[in-house]
């Protein structure tokens, strides 16, 4: 089932298109990694698709009324803001605002806490947790929203390697349970290993869309990222390790 459809989505800043005519579909069961260098327009694309920025072209999500949009897609911004020292349970319950009041005793809150392994931390103040625990609590908040589509902006930035892998595994599990997941990221190795599909954004345009092994080829890595990488097809997936800047052509 298609959960997100973009058709020639364009976001301009002044006269300059930051996102330029992006067309794509995302279905349930996919874990889609959106990669691209700094300034490629990843965050702008995600926010435009969510209807948080005025955009030209079509986004099936932005076309929905705000309340329906909130029940269809959960959005995890990059900054992971937790403004007040609320308990983890109350934080997770904020996801229920998409359905009305943030009820901390709603079964969806218990399920989200359990799914993210947060039951022992439920009574702790969210602001006192480690970065990795906060990231998990915020993902649980998105789960409590019970939206079929989860869109996350650099959800693994700033996390230690174990938390990065754990987070990607959580997203993988969510995708296998039928949700559609779209995450922007910088770590090509993690993207190659965990995503079922990779989108490459370069100067606002979608330049590649496909399985990691098909997309992450030396020519693309040199042209888009300006790097040379060690690529190896291991038994359990593709390994990508950037090693040097690409030589100028």
């Amino acid at each position, binding site marked *: 089932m298609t959960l997100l459809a973009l058709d020639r989505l364009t976001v301009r800043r002044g006269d300059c298109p930051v996102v330029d005519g992006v067309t794509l579909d995302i279905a349930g069961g996919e874990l889609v990694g959106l990669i691209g260098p700094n300034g490629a327009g990843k965050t702008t694309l995600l*926010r435009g698709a*969510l209807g*948080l920025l005025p955009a030209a072209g079509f986004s099936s999500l932005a076309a929905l009324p*705000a*309340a329906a*949009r*909130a029940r269809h*897609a*959960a*959005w*995890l*911004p990059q*900054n992971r*803001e*937790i*403004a*007040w*020292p*609320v*308990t983890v349970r*109350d*934080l997770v319950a*904020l*996801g229920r*605002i*998409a359905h009305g*009041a*943030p009820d901390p005793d709603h079964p969806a809150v218990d399920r989200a806490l359990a799914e993210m392994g947060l039951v022992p931390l439920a009574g702790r*103040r969210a602001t006192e947790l480690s970065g990795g625990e906060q990231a998990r609590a*915020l993902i649980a*908040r998105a789960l409590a*929203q019970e939206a079929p589509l989860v869109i996350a902006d650099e959800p693994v930035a700033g996390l230690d390697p174990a938390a990065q892998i754990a987070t990607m595994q959580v997203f993988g599990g969510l995708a296998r349970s039928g949700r559609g997941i779209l995450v922007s990221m910088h770590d090509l190795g993690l993207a190659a290993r965990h995503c079922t599909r990779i989108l490459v954004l370069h100067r606002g345009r979608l330049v590649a869309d496909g399985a990691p092994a098909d997309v992450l080829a030396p020519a693309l890595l040199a042209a888009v990222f300006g790097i040379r990488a060690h690529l190896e097809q291991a038994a359990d997936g593709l390994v990508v390790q950037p090693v040097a800047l690409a030589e100028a052509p």
Partner: protein
Amino acid sequence: MRQPLLLGLLAGLVAALFVASLAVGPAGIGLRGSLAALVAGGDGPAPLILREIRLPRALLGLLIGAGLGLSGAALQGFLRNPLAEPGLIGVSSSAALGAVVAIYSGASAAFALALPVFALAGALLGVLAILALAGAAARTLTLILAGVAVSALAAALTSLVLNLSSNPYAAGEIVFWMMGSLADRSMLHVAIAAPFILAGGIALLTLGRGLDALTLGEDAAASLGIGLAAMRLRLVLGIAAVVGAATAVAGAVGFVGLVVPHLLRSATGARPARLLWASALGGAAVVLAADVATRVIAPERDLKLGVLTALVGAPFFLHLIRKTAREAA
């Protein structure tokens, strides 16, 4: 603490302080006498004092305290900043300017209600200026900067009026008025302030869900279906009505909107929506208590309410800064 218990305790405290406010005063009518006079009515001196002097004072303390506490909680929640204060959006300074113009021009001497009416007009002009400067759909930072600008302009104009005032009595009156007080207010003052404070207060109380969502930041709140532009407009108009009306009848009563939400934040589990009701009750309790204290501490000296709240509030503010610095370290 469980929410109903906390609100029950605060409501009980407010009720007790309201009764205390009715029972304390230079006329020396005690607790039982006050309540009897108020309930029985009649034309004797005691019922008259209660109806005309003490009841309006207690009602204004209740309304203004609740309004200031609620405004502070709403603004802090919206800005996600525990140091935000309702005066930040410039309405109290512009209301003060209106009042000062009323005193300076002699309008308040000719017609007693000119002062609150001018002050309300000042508040209205202030909020219109902010909305014109920032635009109704402005981003939060633009809104705050507009508030700071309007506040600075109003303060400068107030200074100009004081500077140009050739009448030392008018200047003295302006200075005393700006200290903030509930003394010698009538039921007419209540009638002027109450509709604005109640309407603004109701507008602010409806913001709870959006304020809760803003715990996650503006982008995440918007993605949860919260309309931020509409919310911002309701917040500004609500605070303008409450703070404008409060300043119009009582002058500047500082620190209540800053300190009360702080005192109650942890008891409400730091949830912004819960803090709204708690801060309204807490603000009412603080202003009623401070107003009773002005009468008890210096019965013959007319100690100003705003001076007392600032004297208690400023050290508390310093304590907050130190605590914030320690937590950041």
